[in-house]
């Protein structure tokens, strides 16, 4: 099959030639159509440590609950002083935007997410709910056993709910699909290392978000076609290279603002970005243990890193590998996990003379203010001086 013909197959599935943003926007239609076609259950999940493979093995479609920018006239009644994304999730869920979802799973982590989960339990009693415990001490001696046992409890609950036992073969198939998916995402992400990447930051972010609301087997076909299309693209112009680190961003608006200023986001360390697909499940006889090790061993989210402080090193390695000129540290207002973690990141960046700019945001990015910040930050990094002035060296030293 020719490259062009293959690309058309992916384009048909999307309704537009690799318009991943459109797919994210139409995710509710997609899930409803999936449900009508398969008769399966759709499971909504909140937290980055949810082992989707188990739900997929049980025949479900796991979809991430994404915060959007919708007028919120509901959440004030139910949830007080949480971060904006969580309030927005409650707003959307209670308004029925996710009326096709049959159940919700939350994983031990952010307190605000748990609040949203509780609100839903109190308001939509007919849904299936499960709270999955996952240790904050991800590397403690018994953590993997605890996680494995919790995953087994989750699988049992799914069995009780759907009537279907999850066999080893089911888990193997799900792991195979998810591993392949992560591999494809990593392959695409690797292209961003190039001096002149063929993929923009906003396209990559929309792609990863679309990946989190679609059937992975179907997404894998699209990604394979997309990789072929990327091979045909000409390199983009030389631009200032930025990295985004911080609270989950839920959309690609920040990347778009960066691009509007003539720069590009070439790397990120976000739970809904590279951290989502960074590591694979290493197969072993005990499938649930393999999954436990994968999720405990993924790049730490801020929540799970307080006892280890491994994020700064991972962020540094990404910054080096992707040759970034500067880092945008963004934090959602009231994001307690990144609020307590951010200082360790900026300390590392400052010690290693990597330029960064830190700012707070709501789920709706204040565009004028953010544009003013970006403009000033990019002026600071403009080529001609940033590489020559030696910002890796301490000021005043040779």
């Amino acid at each position, binding site marked *: 099959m020719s490259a062009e013909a293959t690309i058309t197959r992916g384009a048909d599935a999307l309704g537009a030639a690799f318009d991943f943003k459109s797919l994210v926007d139409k995710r509710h239609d997609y899930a409803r159509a999936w449900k009508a076609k398969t008769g399966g259950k759709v499971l909504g999940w909140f937290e980055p440590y949810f082992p989707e493979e188990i739900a997929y093995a049980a025949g479900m479609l796991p979809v991430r609950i994404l915060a959007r920018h919708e007028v919120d006239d509901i959440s004030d009644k139910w949830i007080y002083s949480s971060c904006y994304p969580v309030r927005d999730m409650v707003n959307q869920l209670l308004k029925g935007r996710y009326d096709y979802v049959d159940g919700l799973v939350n994983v031990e982590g952010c307190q605000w997410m748990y609040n949203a989960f509780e609100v839903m339990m109190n308001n939509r009693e007919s849904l299936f709910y499960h709270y999955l415990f996952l240790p904050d001490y991800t590397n403690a001696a018994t953590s993997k056993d605890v996680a494995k046992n919790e995953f087994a409890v989750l699988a049992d609950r799914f069995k009780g709910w759907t009537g279907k036992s999850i066999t080893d073969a089911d888990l193997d198939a799900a792991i195979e699909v998810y591993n392949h998916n992560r591999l494809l995402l990593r392959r695409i992400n690797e292209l961003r290392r190039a001096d002149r990447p063929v993929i923009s930051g906003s396209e990559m972010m929309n792609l990863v978000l679309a990946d989190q609301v679609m059937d992975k087997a179907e997404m894998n076909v699209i990604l394979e076609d997309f990789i072929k299309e990327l091979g045909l693209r000409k390199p983009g112009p030389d631009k200032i290279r930025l990295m985004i680190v911080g609270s989950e961003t839920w959309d690609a608006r920040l990347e778009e603002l960066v691009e509007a200023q003539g720069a590009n986001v070439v790397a990120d360390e976000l739970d809904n970005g590279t951290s989502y697909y960074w590591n694979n499940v290493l197969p072993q006889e005990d499938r649930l243990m393999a999954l436990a090790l994968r999720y405990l061993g993924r790049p730490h989210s801020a929540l799970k890193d307080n006892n280890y402080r491994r994020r700064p090193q991972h962020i540094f390695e990404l910054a080096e590998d992707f040759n970034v000129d500067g880092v945008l540290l963004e934090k959602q207002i009231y994001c307690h996990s990144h609020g307590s973690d951010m200082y360790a990141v900026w300390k590392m960046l400052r010690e290693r003379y990597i330029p960064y700019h830190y*700012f707070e945001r*709501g789920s709706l990015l204040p565009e*004028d203010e953010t544009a003013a910040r970006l403009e*000033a930050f990019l002026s*600071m990094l403009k080529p001609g001086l940033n590489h020559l002035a030696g910002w890796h060296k301490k000021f005043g030293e040779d």
Partner: protein
Amino acid sequence: MVLQYAKWPEIQWMSDDAGWKEAKTITAGVDIGTTSAQAAVVADGQLAAYAGIRAGTDFRKTADEVMALALGASGITLERLSAVGATGFGKRNAAFATESLDEVSCHGKGARFIYGSEVTTVVDLGAQTVTAIKLYEWDRVWDFAMNDICATGMGRNIEMVCDLLHVPIGEIGEYSLDLGGKPDPEPVSTTCYNYAGTETMGLFRPEFRGDTLNGNEICASHLFAVAWRVLGVIGKLQSLEPGDIKVEGKLGFTGGLAHNAGVTRRIERELDTTALTSEYDPMLAGAIGAALLVLPEAAERGGVR
């Protein structure tokens, strides 16, 4: 009665040396802020004229007015200017500008002009935002930090306090420092200027506090909170550890609140440093910086627009 306490005097100045009009390259800068607007004219790198006015609700009209005031009766028209740089919150409304520039670069450049090359840390105290800027020894920004979303409107809030206390804004700083030898009272809320404003208004009501504060102390409490918040922004710029707030090199204030000793001296006290002073009005930093930043390219073109 219309309260006038928050109103500061508008300014206009032009060089006595009329020779500047014959300069090869004349550039201008406008800084359209939320509360004030400034324009500066630079002739072959020398400050030739400037003006500063209160920003109205119509930014475009404000930009036109302040530029016209700076050019005054010089006979220099906008077309004669080799380049015009615009900066500030309302910069898009300066229709006559040839270039749009970011605030950080402009204030950094302007501060270097106002305070000289020894200034390395610039703190722009604006009506809407606070920006701390660290400069290299040469004219380039090393780092900057801005206040958070929920801490905007600081300068505007102080204007409100002036009206409430019936103290002219030019005197409010010294007024807050006149505590009869007593130390500063506890600051009002340092989280958000809306909270700070509300809490300050509460201090006027004796039943809210057993130890009723006089006007000077109320003002001190408010301005201490402002200084506290500014210190947080400076801390983001310099520190490796939370709470480790220090200034490397010399400090220079820009923006309207640089005139407010009640804020600047409290910052100096906490940082154990003395800020640089200058014959130039620190409010002009953004406009002067904009005029200077568009100068090199304009000069390269031979002064032709």
